[in-house]
């Protein structure tokens, strides 16, 4: 839908032929039909690339980067295309570098709890490869059966269990990078720290705008001894967030704490049959994990807190199968919602968790104002909301209203002291909203950081930072330059 913003000319045919020569014809797609699926990701955005390439090695990535740089062609990295902010779309056309052939787990070091993987490895495959050793990879985005580690690193992906375990950046210790100059540099490593600036921390979550990641060293975690999953059922949606705030007050940090409102849980139940009561106003899906004694104790206290906040029922999953079914309900929610509307717009915003009740009321008002059904499913434990606006993308007027409604939700969240995105990234969806959260000086500095790594702006252009005034490309003066860099 935003492809109209493209300002770069289409790639010349000879560049595609050069790519075919470098990588082989089976590693380059350039026909209109072949590229169709690379025009989309999990967001409502779309943009047409000029070609898609499928490197097998870091050396091939280097050759792609050098060729693209020589011709001034944009480059965009892409994992499985499940992102929700347009991060993997070629908004200015150019080459999409798809990592599906760089999908090997290079090493598992169980003793030191590390795995070295290529960017195209699917998130859940890491856990599958190490679970026999009693280990797992903690970040668990809902799309973990298909999303890739490379994409997770770019977006600093989260997931329901990041409440206790942290997001991607907390589980990455080192990266191999291909810079826009074509150099290959390693930052961080396997050890828990590396002397010098935390470049790994800067790269994770930079949405593929600073360098291309070709290898990732992950920290693995030990599987907890015990897990308990509780489903608390409420008649009144307002009681669920009160429960969450109270849990914190009682020194309990569950491994996950998810909320579905009445409309959403009914949509999910019709699709997944997870056992969510159809007549309820909201459910909380809470998981505790750790040592058996701790889990038992915490589950008992949580049940008590839920009841104190008018939960009409607190159900504990009896076995792994029941637990999995409850989670299936949560993780397939977006798909379930898709059955009710031609399009849906999943939002991602964060608020201080004590502001949950008033924010839910505000979202309802915004839904009424713009005449949309807005479902609410979110990571209640960390205040990470995912309001889902149901609309019809084929109707431009509805699309415009959906974007406006979304903007109003975002503004409310920022005013409440929150953040633009908790785990989906800024991408091309929210780059123009960045000034809501950041000053010109903040954005100026981010722009300078980007220019230091991506001087021509050809690496994933049109993402993260606003394209408008004050954020055109900045050239960095040579070391020791007398004047400050100016815009």
């Amino acid at each position, binding site marked *: 839908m935003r492809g109209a913003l493209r300002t770069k000319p289409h790639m010349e045919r000879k560049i595609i032929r050069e790519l075919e020569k470098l990588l082989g014809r089976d590693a380059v797609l350039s026909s209109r039909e072949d590229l169709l699926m690379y025009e989309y990701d999990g967001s409502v955005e779309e943009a047409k690339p000029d070609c898609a390439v499928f490197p097998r090695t870091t050396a091939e990535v280097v050759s792609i980067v050098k060729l693209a740089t020589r011709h001034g062609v944009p480059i965009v990295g892409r994992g499985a295309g499940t992102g929700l902010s347009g991060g993997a779309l070629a908004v200015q056309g150019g080459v999409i570098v798809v990592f599906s052939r760089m999908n090997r787990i290079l090493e598992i070091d169980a003793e030191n709890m590390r795995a070295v993987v290529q960017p195209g490895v699917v998130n859940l495959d890491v856990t599958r490869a190490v679970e026999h050793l009693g280990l797992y990879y903690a970040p668990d985005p809902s799309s973990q059966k298909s999303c890739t580690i490379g994409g997770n690193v770019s977006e600093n992906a989260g997931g329901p269990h990041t409440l206790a375990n942290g997001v991607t950046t907390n589980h990455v210790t080192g990266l191999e990078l291909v810079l826009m100059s074509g150099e290959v540099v390693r930052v961080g490593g396997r050890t828990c720290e590396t002397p010098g600036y935390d470049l790994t921390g800067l790269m994770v979550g930079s949405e593929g705008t600073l360098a291309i990641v070709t290898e990732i060293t992950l920290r693995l975690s030990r599987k907890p001894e015990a897990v308990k999953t509780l489903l608390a059922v409420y008649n009144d949606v307002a009681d669920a967030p009160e429960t969450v705030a109270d849990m914190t007050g009682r020194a309990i940090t569950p491994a996950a704490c998810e909320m579905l409102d009445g409309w959403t849980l009914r949509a999910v139940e019709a699709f997944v049959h997870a056992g969510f009561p159809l007549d309820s106003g909201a459910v909380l899906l809470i998981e505790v994990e750790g040592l058996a004694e701790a889990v038992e104790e915490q589950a008992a206290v949580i049940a008590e807190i839920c009841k104190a906040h008018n939960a009409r029922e607190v159900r504990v999953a009896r076995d792994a199968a029941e637990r999995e079914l409850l989670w299936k309900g949560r993780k397939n929610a977006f798909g379930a919602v898709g059955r009710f509307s031609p399009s849906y717009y999943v939002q991602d915003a964060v608020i201080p968790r004590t502001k949950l009740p008033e924010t839910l009321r505000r979202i309802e008002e915004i839904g009424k104002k713009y005449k949309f059904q807005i479902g609410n499913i979110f990571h209640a434990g960390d205040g990470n909301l995912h309001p889902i606006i149901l609309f019809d993308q084929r109707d431009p007027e509805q699309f415009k209203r959906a974007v406006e409604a979304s903007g109003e939700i975002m503004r409310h969240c920022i005013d409440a002291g929150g953040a633009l995105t908790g785990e989906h990234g*800024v991408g091309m969806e929210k780059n123009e909203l960045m000034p809501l959260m950041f000053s010109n000086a903040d954005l100026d500095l981010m722009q300078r950081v980007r220019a230091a790594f991506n001087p021509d702006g050809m690496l994933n252009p049109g993402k993260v930072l606003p394209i408008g005034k004050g954020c055109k490309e900045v050239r960095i003066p040579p070391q020791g330059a007398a004047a400050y860099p100016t815009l």
Partner: protein
Amino acid sequence: MTSTFSSSNSSASSAQRASDGRASLAARIAEKFGAANVIADAAPLAAYEVDGMQPAAAVKVGSGAEIAELLQFASAEKLAVIPSGGRTKLGIGAPPARYDVALDVSRMNKVLAYEPRDLTLGLEPGVRIAELWGVLACEKQWLPLIAPFAERATIGGVLATDSASPLRHAYGGPRDFTLGMEFVTGYGAAAKSGGRVVKNVSGYDMHKLLIGSLGTLAVITRANFKTFPFPPARDVFVAHFENSVAAMEFCHAVQRSALEPRLVEVISPEAAKLISAGANAPLPLSSNGWSVALGVAAHERVVERHARELAALATQTKASNFVRLGGEDQSEILNPICAFPTHVLAADPGAAIFRIAALPGVMAALAERLAAVAAGVQLEHATVLRPHGLLFFAVMNPPAAAPDAARLARAAQEIFRAAEDLGAKARIEWAPTELKRAVNVWGEARPDFQLMRRVKQIFDPENILSPGRFAGGI
């Protein structure tokens, strides 16, 4: 003779000019920033000394706006500025290339926001760690930072030095629970990154660069944290072993079990002697074998289970002693262990302390090899290691022997080599200036240093912030 005379005369006059220049700089700074908050006399300025260098003036700033003004002034005048808080860790890093102004943030010591129900906290950089505990304890919360020099150390300094907390294994380090920062860049722009909520991926995580940057990129004016509920029960257990291999075997057994100790400190007999000498009360550490201290913080039943199972694992791995301290004794042992650098430097101000990140699997081998290096050059040594991946190794001059910088430098080179051979990453955290001038405290140059220099150029294009103290000559 004549030339000697005229040369010394000329150097005396150039020293005089330099001294006049510094006095006039101090006067200009006092005029600009108010005499009340500017220190220009030599005696109090000694407190701001870094590696034997004294600034011309120290400015006790009161706000981000003042910091911006000072850094804009310093950028225009090309004055080197070193930020400080409690001044407990100014000795960390390479000797500065230049030093004109000390930027003291200790007056900026307010808790700006604390929302216990949201588990969020916003602090000015000068908040002292020890005072912070009082604030958080009222709400039964805490930040999992046990920092050396906690009485004087400030949160800004702990972040700028990435002070290694023994709790990092369980809770992560500052990079894991810092939500965002506000700061002033070297070119004097107030900027921020991250946010104030517990989850956020909006924009580049520039604040992560500031953690451990030794004040070379920006001056922190506010840091936002995720706080943690304080566990209801806690205890400390200590097991004694004949040697480092046996101690590490016990640690690996604990790591393979379901148990979840919140901190594990492995202490060599030499380190135990230093720590015990510096503590107020007798400590249950072995002076002829290796000790493992484990801290547990959880529900009571979980603590009890640790007591049972740790004792069993200690027996299995042939511990010579296993002690349960009881909850109240926790700080009495943990604080002295954490203050290991203080005890080393008290015993030998000429000592060097290495901070080495290593994989758990090589820890025992590394500890042995380092001890052999020190013994090979007849230097004393002491080790405190955290089996999840960090080792502190002190090399000291023998008692009654004159400090021998050349010998220390030789040992340092070998220690760097030993670490590299085992895939570990070493740096010297504490050392006498003489050694720091002879040996690069950051170790050998690495390819990623060029990226770090690019980052430095963005944040501090005039190279005025802590010049020369950081890795890669930054």
